[in-house]
Each structure stands twice: as C-alpha cells, then as structure tokens.
C-alpha cells in the first residue's frame, strides 16, 4: 500500500493487492473461529501508522474507496493476529487448520464410522466402479444421516481407497443483493441456484465427464453434497424431477448426500419433502444407505488419538464427556476438543464438581447427563420438536411407585394431591428444549388433552381445564399492557406455559388407556380466523345495508338482527337487505378452505406422534 497516492494507476495496483489479501483473509477465516476483538493486538505500531496514513492521504476523490480498503486491510491484520493468538494458545505452533480438517480420515481404518457400514459401502462402491459405463441404472448411492456422522468422509476415504477421483458439484456462491443489482444493471440474467443445479444435472446426463480434465482411464465418482436450497412446493417439485432424472440416467457412479434434520425441527414442512424425496429416489433405483450417529466408543477412540498427536493431556473422563456431549457428531466433537484445549483449566473444575456429588452419580446415567449438560460451554444442546414435547406432556408417563426421595419431601399432602413421580425431566426444561412459545403450547394442550383423559374422569377434565384457564389469564395479562417490560413479560409467559403444562400433568391423574393418538392442530386458530373474517364481513354488510340509519352493536347484530333477517328472508319476504346478504354460509365455507390452505404452509396439520 506504499504507492497509494495521487495517481489512479497506483490505486488500482494497490487495490489488487488488497484483493489478494482479501482472498487470503477469506481462506483464513474458514479456519478460525476465535473472535478477533478478544485478542490483544500484537503490533500496535503498524496499525497506528496505517491509521494516520489513511487520514493524511491526499486524495479528495478516492477518499472513501481507499478508506474501505484500509479498513479491510486492517481488519485482516487484526484477524491474522487473532489467528496467531489462537494458535499460540493451543500450544502447538504447527497447526494452521481446524482439527476437524486436519484429522480428516484418509484411510478406511481411520474412519470412525462403524466397520460394518464401511464394509457395506465399500462393496457398493466396488460394484459400481467396476461395472460402470455399461449398465445404465443403479449408479446412484443415496447417503442419509444426521450432520457430522462422516458421510462425506466415508465417500472420500473409500474413493481414495479405490483410487477413484471425486468430482464434486460445487454450490455456486450465493448472490448478494447488491451484486444482483449490479448484475442486472449490466444485463446479466439472474439464475437461481436451483436452475444452475438443473443445468449441471442436464450436462452430466448428456455428456458425462467428457471434459479434458478427466483422463480416459481414471475412474470418477460424482459427489453431490450440497443440494440447492428449496422452499415451497414448486421449487421442491423441480428439484425432485431433476434428481429423479439424474438417478435414472446418470452413467457415472454418483453419491448424493442428504443430511436429515429429523430431530432438529420436525415442525418444518420441508421434513416431509425430504422423506418423500428419499422414497422416490429409491424407487427410481438409487441405493439408500443410512448413517447412524457415531457411537461414543469410536468417538472416544478418535478423540484420544487426536489428543495424542496434539500432545494435549486430557483425562479419559474428559474425553468421554466430550464424546457424549457431541451427540454422535464427530465433526462437532473434534471441534469441541480443539476449543477445549484452548483453555484446558476449565474442565477439571467441572469434573470436580461432578465427582464431588456422588449422589448424582448414583442415579441413572440420563440424569447425570442432564445436570452436566447445561453447564458445559460446548456440546450440542439437545432440541426437541414441539410435538415430541407435547407428546411427553400428554402421555404423562409416570413411575409405577413413588420414589423414596419424594416421600421425604411430601410430608402432609392429602391423598388426592399425591402424584407418582414423573418419568421425564422437569417440564420446564422440556419446554426450553422445545423452544416454543407459551401461547401455542397452551393452545395445543387445550386442543388435545381431552383425548388423553379417561372417559370416566370428568373431574380430571375440569382440573385440567381450570389450569388452562389460569394460564390463559396469565397470558392475557401480558397483552395490551402499555409500557412493555419485556423481562417481566418473559417471566409471565414462561409461568403461563409452566402452569398449563403442569396443570395438564397434575390434573390428568386418570389416564385414558394408552393408544395411538394423533396430535391435532388447535382448531381454535381456525375459529379465530374465520370469526375475524365474519366480523369484517358483518361490519361491511351493516354499512351497506343499513343506509346509515343506525349503528347497532356487533353483538346485537349477531344475536338478534341477523337471525331475524335470515328467518324473514327464508320465508320469501324479499327485503332489500337480502341483496347484500351474500349467503354467509357459503362465504364461510370458502374462507375455511382458504384458511386451511394458509395454515398448512405454516404448520403441518396432521403431524402425528406415536405413543412414546
């Protein structure tokens, strides 16, 4: 940046330098996740100079431009510092990468995936690689599994085992809005990622890999890792067709990777799309291989191997903790390990506290996990889908006999207030895991709880209903308040959810015999919407029909005027009202239809749960 100054040419040069820097920076940024701000700058002098330069530079016109460059530059430097600091603190100056990349398995033995699964995949690959070119169909493998279970790693490892080259469909970088504006002004047409993918597939189907880069002898595996994001039925349909064609007609061995998000959010509509996609691709001749989360044992093995190579000293217990916290996600486990080695003094204290409470240990494993998990600064928070959580509350599973601990606490409760201990975590923690708002929770419980109450126990139904009432009152107290105090609102909301859930759990003491139930979407929402439409309709009708004679209250119109009008109208006494009376039933039907459609897009209506 020395030459920056009066002439344009130098600016161009320096800007290209900056570009290089930029690339460099973007590369590095992949590797680092420590916050640059938190790292003290190692070279304050340089930066100060830079800053002063940027201030004193004699360039009235190009000022803002170069300033931008400067800023990026400075930012890069800070970032570099950050990375350096990061590396120093790992205690291993050699590593420049994330461990998850560094310790990528290169051979079949290093894979943490289960041996049998690897073997299975290997056989499948062998078939396809040897028999390729001639047999047309069944060239496609479909790998399905949660994130971080080693799907891609397996593909790479096996491909290298067979000496095949992997050709990957690279997702194009997304277009930013500004970029799009620029492009469209310069006449470039915007192509969506889906379109690009489609044309890619078309190319592959027609020409295979005839391009010069591929030697005739080398074997190629096509890897489609990153399917374009689709949203909505139409684009989903396009993707579906496109993949279907690919499966049917591709002549190279192809692997399609799909990450499924079953646990993450099954309230999402796209879930169902993906499942459909699996099925239809299988029908088209793809061979589906599902990957399970990696077992704690093999995670532990991998982690301790890495520890040995990185010369970090972690106790077996710590490694086990890490392995468990990652939930079978090996990438996450390794990254956690790396992060963890940055400040190795944190865990011992944790472990100490863990060891010092032997009473926890005595309980079931699940419980200890629960107590530790929130306090870990790494590890994945387990999420629950809304429906899973609701299922838990509604099915109300309890221990068959009271535990000793609880007996001590509940000294003088009357018989009718005593309940067996719950066979689940505390309802609040489940609510937290389900990440749902209190209002929908209350609505869902209200809609569904009666299915789960024994048909004899109307008293229970009342207890439940009265608790739901209470929670409704609590929720209402939040709304319509003038001065919004968000903290207080939050407390009230979670209290309301807690009242609703605990009310359902407590009240429903005589469970209906367990059978399979579907959880319905609250009909209340639909009712509210159609009520609203009906009201609007009535207001406008009144305006048209009444000729401004009188303004009746809405309730009067609904309860008295309208029924009378209908009755009079039915008897054939033609009133001028009737012309405006656009047969409310039909309207309502239409509206219902509309509403149903609307709702489907926002919430799967027939999402069902099994008997948990």
């Amino acid at each position, binding site marked *: 940046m020395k030459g920056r100054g009066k002439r344009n040419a130098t600016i161009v040069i320096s800007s290209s330098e900056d570009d290089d820097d930029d690339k460099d920076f973007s590369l590095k940024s992949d590797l680092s996740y420590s916050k640059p701000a938190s790292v003290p700058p190692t070279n304050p002098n340089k930066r100060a100079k830079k800053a002063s330069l940027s201030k004193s530079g004699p360039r009235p016109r190009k000022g803002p431009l170069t300033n931008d460059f400067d800023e990026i530059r400075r930012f890069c430097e800070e970032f570099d510092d950050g990375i350096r600091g990061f590396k120093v603190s790992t205690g291993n100056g050699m590593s420049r990468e994330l461990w998850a990349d560094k310790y990528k398995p290169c051979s079949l033995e290093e894979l943490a995936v289960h041996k049998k699964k690897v073997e299975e995949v290997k056989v499948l690959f062998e078939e396809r690689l040897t028999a390729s070119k001639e047999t047309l169909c069944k060239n496609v493998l479909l790998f399905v599994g949660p994130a971080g279970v080693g799907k891609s790693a397996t593909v790479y490892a096996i491909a290298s085992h067979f000496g095949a080259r992997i050709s990957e469909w690279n997702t194009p970088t997304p277009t930013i809005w500004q970029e799009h504006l620029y492009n469209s002004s310069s006449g470039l047409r915007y192509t969506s990622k889906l379109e690009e993918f489609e044309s890619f597939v078309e190319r592959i189907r027609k020409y295979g890999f005839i391009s010069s880069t591929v030697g005739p002898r080398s074997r190629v595996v096509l890897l489609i890792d990153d399917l374009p994001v689709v949203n909505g039925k139409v684009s989903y349909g396009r993707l579906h067709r496109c993949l279907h064609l690919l499966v049917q007609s591709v002549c190279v061995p192809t692997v399609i990777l799909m990450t499924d998000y079953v646990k993450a959010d099954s309230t999402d509509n796209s879930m169902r799309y993906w499942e459909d996609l699996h099925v239809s691709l299988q029908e088209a001749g793809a061979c589906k291989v599902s990957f399970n989360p990696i077992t704690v044992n093999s995670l532990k093995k991998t982690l301790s191997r890495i520890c040995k190579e990185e010369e970090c000293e972690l106790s077996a217990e710590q490694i086990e903790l890490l392995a468990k916290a990652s939930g079978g996600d090996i990438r996450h486990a390794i990254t956690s390990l790396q992060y963890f080695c940055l400040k190795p003094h944190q865990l011992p204290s944790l472990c100490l506290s863990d060891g010092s409470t032997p009473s926890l240990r005595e309980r079931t494993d699940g419980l200890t996990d629960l107590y530790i998990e929130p306090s870990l600064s790494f590890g994945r928070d387990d999420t629950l889908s809304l429906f899973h959580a609701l299922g838990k509350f509604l099915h109300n599973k309890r221990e068959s006999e009271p535990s000793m601990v609880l007996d001590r606490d509940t000294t003088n409760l009357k018989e009718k207030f005593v309940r067996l201990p719950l066979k689940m975590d505390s309802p609040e923690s489940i609510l937290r895991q389900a990440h749902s708002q209190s209002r929908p929770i209350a609505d869902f419980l209200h809609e569904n709880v009666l299915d789960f109450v024994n048909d004899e126990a109307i008293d229970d139904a009342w207890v439940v209903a009265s608790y739901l009432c209470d929670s409704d009152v609590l*929720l209402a107290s939040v709304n319509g308040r*003038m001065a919004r105090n968000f903290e207080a609102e939050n407390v009230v909301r979670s209290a309301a959810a807690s009242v609703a859930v605990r009310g359902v759990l407590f009240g429903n003491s005589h469970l209906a015999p367990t059978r399979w139930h579907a959880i319905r979407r609250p009909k209340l929402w639909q*009712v509210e919407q159609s*009520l609203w439409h009906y009201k609007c309709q009535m*207001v406008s009708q009144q305006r048209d029909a009444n000729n401004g004679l009188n303004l009746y209250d*809405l309730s009067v119109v*609904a309860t008295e005027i309208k029924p009378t009008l*209908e*009755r009079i109208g039915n008897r054939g006494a033609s009133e001028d009202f009737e012309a405006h009376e656009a047969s409310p039933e039909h309207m309502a039907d239409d509206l219902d239809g509309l509403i149903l459609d609307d709702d489907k897009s926002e919430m799967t209506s027939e999402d069902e749960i099994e008997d948990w």
Partner: protein
Amino acid sequence: MLWVDKYRPKTLDKVLVHKEVAENLKKLVTEQDCPHLLFYGPSGSGKKTLIMALLRQMFGPSSDKVKVENKTWKVEAGTRTLDIELTTLLSTHHVEMNPADAGFQDRYVVQEIIKEMAKNRPLDAKGKKGFKVLVLNEVDRLSREAQHSLRRTMEKYSSSCRLILCCNSSSKVSEAVRSRCLNVRISAPTEDEMVRVLEFIGKKEGLQLPPGFAARIAEKSNRSLRRAILLFETCRVQQYPFTNNQAIPPMDWEEYVSEIASDIMKEQSPKRLFQVRGKLYELLTNCIPPEIILKRLLYELLKKLDSELKHEVSYWAAYYEHRMRLGQKAIFHLEAFVAKFMSIYKGFLISTFG
C-alpha cells in the same frame, strides 16, 4: 326496513316507553347546557332510541342526515404507526362509534381519534362556537386504560364537545368516568309497555292481533323491546293472520345453546366435553359473544336442574364469566365452566342414585 328501525320514535315527544326520562332530557337540553351523559340499562331497553331522539331535539332535523363511514385512522403510538379501522356514523353535529371494536387498541381510539374530533368544533348559525356530540357505544367493553384516557379527554375538551356514553352495565365503567357524567338509567320496559308498543305497531301495519298474542311475544322476549319487535315481525312473516297458539320461535343460536345444554345433561365425560367444545366453536364463529353464550347456557341448564345445585352452578358461571373477562380466549373459560358443571352434576347423580 325492519320494523325495529321503521317504528323507532324520532323525537322525544313520540316515545312510548320511558316517557318521564324523555321529558327530563328535553328539559335538560332546552336549558342550553348539556352535561356529559351516560346511558345505561339492559339491551333492548331503548337507550339508543332516546339518544337519537335527544340529538334531534338538540340539533333539529339535520341530525337525521347521517352517513356511515369506514375510516382508517393513522395513530402514532410511540415508534410505530397503527392503522385502526373503525366504522363511524357522522352528521354535521355528532359522531357515533364503537370504540370497543378496536379491540385492545381501543385506548388509541379514545386518545387520538376522539381528541382529533373534539378539536375541530363546528360554528353554529350565529357564528357562536357550538359543541359537537360524540356518541360512544359499549363503553363497558372498553379496557381499563381506555376508560382512563377517556376521563382525561372528557375534562380537556369539555368546552367543545359533549360525550354521550352508552353501555349495558355501569358497573363495568370506571368510577371516574361515571362521576363526570349525568347518569341516566334506562330500565327494561315492563311487559305492559311492550304490549302497548306492539299493539301500536300492529295498528300502524294494519294487522289483526288476537288478544293475548302481544303478551305472549312480550313474555318470550325477555323484556327486550327490540327482541319483541323482531319476534313480532318474524311471526308476521311466518304466519298471518295470527293465531293465538302460534309458535314463537327462539333465535337459532338459542336453540343451539339449549341443544348443548341437553347434551351436557345427558352425558358427563371428556368425550362429550370435546363435542360440546365443537359446538361452542360453532357459536363463537358466528360472532355470538361468549358472555351471552355463557349466560344463555346457564339459563338453559338451570331450567333442567335440581334446585339444590342451582346455587353452586350459578356461582361457577359467575366465576368463569369473570375469568373470561380477564383472559383472552373465551373458549378456555367456557369449556372450564362446562367441565365444572359436568363434574358437579355427575357427583350429584352418583350421590343421589348411587
């Protein structure tokens, strides 16, 4: 045009019921200064009729020339701008509206819209500054905040505008508002008065009324004159000439409620409760206010109930009506009432019949 509108008395002199109130109102207005007024009384007792007649008394026939406007108001509320849609009835001298229709935004209506209207006062013929009248319906449905700001509006603009408030129950109007108004209680007309009105209408329409027929309608209409006239017209359409034993049908929704009531009496179980919920939804979708559903349901249940249970059931109905006002979703509370009733009734059945 419905008879209710057609035979609505236009002036204070012509009213058939509440003649004394009309006299007093007339005196009040002729003495120039008119205080804020609060009319309260049960539905169908003639509050609105009196208000309209009063307006005519104040402003002459020009107050009849009204137009309905559905206006969207832009209200600045802190950082946001709210759009509030309200139907108003306007003449040159008065504005009528239902601020409670704005739901929980009612306070903005009261604060902003009324303020704006009260500001531009009309000039009367002599160039003297007159006052404008704001008629607010269903004041009892206003939220507490809205009633509070109503109070301030009343004080601030009392020189330029008069408020006429109208509500069913003055107990739901805040003390502060009530004390700033002249309270006018309009009681429900007696059955004799209603019979007189019905006979008057019959005569105007040239109908033959068999003796006792008007009394029967009056009895069915629960002391609501509007209901009585509507029923009368319905009967006229259904069958004429009238016979003395002609059926006077209740409103559809009332039949539906009594159906629900008999459902409840027949079986008390969560499954039945669920079915009842469906029917309640049906009523709510048709804009029947939940309070009225609850009231009617209680009425129907009490008819069929053993007297020793009546007290307890009424207690719970009152309890859940209160909760309903506090809460947001009426169905939760209606259903809780039904569940409670089922639970009480089942206990009663078991203890009596074993």
